[in-house]
């Protein structure tokens, strides 16, 4: 994130914060969707996170660590929302790209659906560890800082989350021929 913008926002410049929010809202929404798997909850978590970020920005000691700090706030907001997951109207996210993806043919929709189903079996904590590592591309150390958890916990969640994901995908693969027979 542009350091000057962060410094201006930290000094109370709302226009600078608006610019930051416009730049990060897409990425934050993706992270929240990946953790919560619910469009409305994700929208609420992103709003909460950005409002908290604005309110607490003066307390940011190291502006160069703004992104990690913001991710930490978002993950916390996601966990709060996940705990309150009593909403009646939930919406499944439709993965319809807003632009033509350059590599749309590289992977089948079936494979994507399999991953979607497998991720649904993980806890929000495991999904947060995976999204920090494989979407935000943070190192384990930075991921642990972003999620506000010890490094050992971060490692264990990424490893365990990956293992669970593989196990569910393998089980899904084994079931697939059976399904095909049933519907033949």
């Amino acid at each position, binding site marked *: 994130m542009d350091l000057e913008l962060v410094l201006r926002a930290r000094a109370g410049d709302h226009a600078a914060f608006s610019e930051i929010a416009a730049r990060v809202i897409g990425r934050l929404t993706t992270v929240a969707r990946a953790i919560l798997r619910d469009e409305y909850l994700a929208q609420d978590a992103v709003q909460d996170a950005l*409002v908290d970020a604005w309110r607490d920005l003066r307390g940011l000691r190291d502006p160069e660590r703004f992104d990690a700090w913001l991710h930490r706030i978002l993950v916390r907001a996601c966990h709060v929302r996940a705990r309150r997951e009593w909403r009646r109207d939930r919406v499944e996210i439709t993965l319809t790209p807003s632009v033509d993806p350059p590599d749309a043919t590289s992977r089948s929709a079936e494979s994507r659906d399999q991953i979607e189903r497998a991720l649904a079996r993980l806890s929000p904590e495991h999904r947060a560890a995976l999204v920090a590592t494989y979407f935000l591309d943070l190192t384990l150390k930075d991921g642990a800082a972003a999620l506000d958890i010890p490094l050992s916990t971060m490692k264990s969640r990424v490893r365990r989350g990956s293992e669970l994901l593989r196990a569910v995908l393998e089980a899904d693969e084994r079931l697939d021929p059976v399904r095909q027979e049933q519907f033949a």
Partner: protein
Amino acid sequence: MTERIEPVAGLREYYRDLARVAPAEHQLAIVLARTADLAQRPAWRMRLPRLSSLEELGRLFPLRYALVAVATFLVALSVGVVGNRSGSPFEGRWTSTDVGDGSTQILDISGGVAPAVRFEDRMASGCADHGDPSVDFIAHGTAIAAGDRLVVDYRDGGGCTTWHVPAFTVTMTLDRSTGTMRDPDGNVWHRAP
């Protein structure tokens, strides 16, 4: 720390696909409305423990203090100290005449900083144009009040009987000098008598 754990095949592509779904259009508007008049907290406040949930609150406060707080609130409510504190300039019933087709529109807004909103257009030309047997268009939403602006998020959209529109967001702007509100379509809203 450079240690990496090999990702599951296809996981990164899954996230990339997820990132292609644009955030809802109203998201940014709501965030900006919620923060526009929100004061930043002084830096020293961030060193205090964060109360992100009732569980944490429960751990920090013994039950007896919580009960005293609840009892105090109920007493305050009963004597009207809290109940009369709303003071939202948006609260109440508003009406306007649609500049597009001359129909009467009604807006009911509850109190507080995040009020519930009910919008009704009693002669909606959109419904008539789409062959809906009813022309009474109704939408329910929730709003965020920020200064002179009220951003209303109609999350479930709205409609008549058979014709419905998807989710939409409307920002109402209060004109304190005239006591009226204006919406983005140029409609002027007056308080209902």
